[in-house]
């Protein structure tokens, strides 16, 4: 069991080297099969680790151990949340690799090599117990991402998206490294448990607060939290669909996992006096992101960009769960992340099916064209309708259980009960936009000429695949179908909720983390228990009804709704301002990054 721990990281790295070496020499089917086999092997390994990680597994690289309380080498400390996230990552990468079999004829096996390195970086990020190693795997993830986004170099859009992505995320990484350097300067250690133990003896002072701020900003840039979120919509609009599946499904969520890991394993003891203030800052950021993401989602007509803003909105909701700084909130976000990843992955793949067939993902150009008996289009229709309803938490499918856990975690915390209402609004808006797309594309409803004549970020799309377009190949139909069904029913497994709750308690237990890594004993903290209550059903029903109503309203003829013109005018003006801020210009994005850092820092400092 112990010996398996380094394998999920080494195996994809070695396979990636082999794939790059045999590029153009080996036939495409062989390299695809090798890549897929490697990803599935990693999936099995991570699942086995997750099943056995109820007592933390610690693996020391280089055979080093702790000497006099000093961690001399690098450790992987595997707990259930880390191994569980790694399993989810491997699942999504396998689905994306299967889906992309028909893609990327021009670069052969190089795409597979990039995806495997991406997989290795993400799995290493989940399993590591060393702060600088976390940064190294974070960079592995990022660099593979930059290469994947800029793939379609013939157009200006991908270049812009890749540049925005690379510059904003690099600045975030440097901020994170500065924070790590500060913590090293204070404690002289890089092992997370050792830093945590060293910091726990004193309350947080300026250095610890600023280090937290810098590491937090670095991770939240990757997690696309407002005001660091601008890059994600640009990158998703132009990246090839398999890359979008991974960015939205797991990369963003992994950054939030990183924040949770750094908080719970390193800083929670020293920040104990400031928990309420940190909670307020994180939840405020999460709510702002959830609302802005949802509003921008409704205003898009480019389907991939619409789904990107939906991801931003959900990322904000995950941050609300994490920001509660309780094991219950952590468990809720964990459950929500799993359901969301599969549904969002399926949605992007369905958008890819439309792109493959019709060479466009513009909602208005596709109006009515999704009607047809082709199995690919039928699956895409099912994914959009059921995926949209699933993201609206239609009980008992989709994110219903994750949402109810989140509501259950919020209501007991004094002063935060009203947040559930805001989450309902955010979910309804973004799910409503997805249902609107489903109605327009697959039902042919909605007006013929778009109401707003300004260019709503319509980007012309070159096809991503070279195979014939009148039929959807089976490898593009099976993965979204599997992910859709998985995302809808995974919440129903009652064992899953209990397992995640226990895993969250394990992660939040800093004392036993330190004991497992550095030696010693500690008592485990009890797992949270948030049963599903009637309120959850009411909130979910409200979300679903809101989403359906919004979709119907958007598709109905304008004459029916003229009494609301005044309200609509104000709302439109607000949306126009918001959309102008998303200017596509990287200078603006960096200015917002620094502004967000300064404001968040001021909030933390003055608290």
């Amino acid at each position, binding site marked *: 069991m112990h010996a398996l721990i380094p394998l999920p990281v080494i195996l994809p790295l070695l396979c990636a080297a082999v794939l*790059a070496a045999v590029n153009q020499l080996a036939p495409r089917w062989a390299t695809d099969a090798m890549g897929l086999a490697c990803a599935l092997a990693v999936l099995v390994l991570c699942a086995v680790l997750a099943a056995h990680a109820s007592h933390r597994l610690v693996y020391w690289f280089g055979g080093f151990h702790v000497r006099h309380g000093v961690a001399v080498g690098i450790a992987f400390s595997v707990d259930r949340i880390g191994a569980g996230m790694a399993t989810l990552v491997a699942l999504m990468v396998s689905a994306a690799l299967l889906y992309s079999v028909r893609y990327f004829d021009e670069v052969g096996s*190089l795409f597979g090599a990039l995806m495997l390195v991406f997989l290795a970086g993400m799995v290493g990020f989940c399993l590591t117990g060393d702060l600088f190693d976390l940064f190294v795997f974070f960079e*592995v993830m990022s660099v593979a991402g930059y290469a994947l986004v800029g793939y379609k170099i013939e157009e200006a859009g991908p270049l812009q998206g890749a540049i925005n992505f690379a510059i904003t995320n690099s600045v975030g990484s440097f901020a994170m490294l500065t924070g790590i350097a500060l913590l090293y300067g204070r404690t*002289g250690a890089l092992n997370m448990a050792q830093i945590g133990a060293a910091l726990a003896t004193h309350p947080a002072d*300026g250095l610890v607060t600023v280090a937290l701020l810098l590491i937090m900003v670095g991770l939240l840039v990757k997690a696309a939290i407002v005001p660091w979120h601008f890059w994600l919509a640009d990158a998703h609009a132009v990246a090839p669909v398999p890359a979008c599946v991974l960015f939205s499904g797991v990369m963003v969520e992994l950054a939030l996992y990183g924040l949770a890991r750094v908080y719970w394993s390193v800083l929670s003891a020293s920040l104990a006096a400031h928990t309420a203030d940190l909670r307020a800052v994180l939840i405020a950021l999460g709510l702002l992101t959830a609302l802005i993401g949802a509003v921008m989602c409704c205003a898009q007509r480019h389907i991939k960009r619409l789904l990107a803003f939906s991801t931003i909105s959900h990322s904000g909701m995950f941050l609300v769960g994490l920001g509660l700084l309780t094991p219950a909130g952590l468990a809720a976000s964990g459950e929500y992340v799993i359901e969301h990843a599969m549904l969002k992955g399926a949605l992007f793949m369905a958008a890819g099916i439309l792109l493959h067939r019709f060479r466009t993902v513009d909602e208005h150009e596709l109006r009515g064209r999704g009607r047809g008996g082709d199995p690919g289009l039928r699956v895409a229709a099912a994914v959009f309708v059921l995926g949209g309803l699933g993201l609206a938490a239609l009980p008992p499918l989709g994110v219903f259980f994750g949402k109810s856990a989140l509501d259950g975690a919020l209501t007991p915390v004094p002063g935060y009960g009203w947040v559930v209402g805001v989450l309902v609004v955010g979910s309804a808006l973004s799910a409503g936009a997805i249902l609107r797309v489903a109605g327009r594309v697959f039902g042919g409803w909605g007006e013929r000429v778009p109401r707003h004549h300004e260019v709503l970020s319509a980007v012309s799309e070159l096809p991503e695949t070279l195979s014939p377009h009148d039929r959807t190949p089976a490898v593009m139909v099976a993965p979204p179908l599997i992910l859709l069904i998985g995302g809808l029913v995974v919440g129903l497994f009652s064992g899953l909720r209990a397992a995640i709750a226990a895993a969250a308690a394990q992660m939040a237990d800093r004392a036993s983390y330190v004991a497992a890594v550095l030696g010693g004993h500690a008592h485990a903290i009890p797992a949270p228990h948030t049963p599903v209550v009637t309120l959850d059903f009411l909130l979910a029903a409200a979300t679903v009804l809101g989403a359906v109503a919004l979709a119907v309203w958007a598709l109905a003829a304008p004459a029916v709704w003229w009494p609301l013109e005044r309200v609509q005018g104000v709302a439109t003006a607000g949306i126009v301002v918001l959309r102008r801020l998303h200017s596509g210009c990287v200078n603006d994005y960096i200015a917002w990054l620094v502004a967000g850092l300064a404001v968040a820092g001021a909030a933390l400092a003055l608290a």
Partner: protein
Amino acid sequence: MSERARLGLFLGAATGMAVLLAWGMAGLPAFGAFHGAYALLIDHVVVAQRHATDAVTAVNFDYRGLDTLGEEFILFTSVVGLAVLLREQRSERERPPARAGEEHRFQGASCALRTLTLLLVGPLVVLALYVDSHGALTPGGGFQGGVLGAAALLLVFLGGGYLTMRRLSPHRLVELAEAGGAAGYGMIGVGGIVFAGAFLKNFLGYGTAGELISAGTIPLLSMAVAAEVSGAFVLLWSEFLDQALIVRRG
């Protein structure tokens, strides 16, 4: 946003950030007064434990060898990414010059420049090999030596012989060296599992400190990294130079 608004927003935010950074850095130990336990421990044990006299290389390839594996693969990824980003477009083709004599008109190199660079290539290769192999003994190691090796090849280009440089570094071979170096590092690490029970554990004899063959697997890892880094940099420079000198539209 207008440029003025953006600049105003940034300057205000940067002032705030400067204050925050100053507040954070005030908590650092004074310059020169560092006393981190990890560093002191390594300084004390590295010669006795690994018979390596260069502590930085020992940290890079032994104590924190996993970080170096990740870093090596970041370089590998960027080379693969570069090959993807600069791949030949359907609307382009490569147009190398017709005659060999035309090649050093690319850069207009004079006879003095060509002679000097030819004289320097040999010593630079020797220096690269020296720095690689003595990584565990003196400042140096795989990364530094690898860059020197790639630079020796670049000198040929700088002396006006771009096509000679391309001929000396056939694409397939360099790609193989690069991927081989990356995989080689991983395989030596797996050797640590097979022979010593932990990934990247130093499983060879440590020898005597100060000799060329010492410090176990550290020189081997250093060589693997050198192969990977020189291959990577040669590929990077070739791609960029191809774009500038050879690739033409239509």
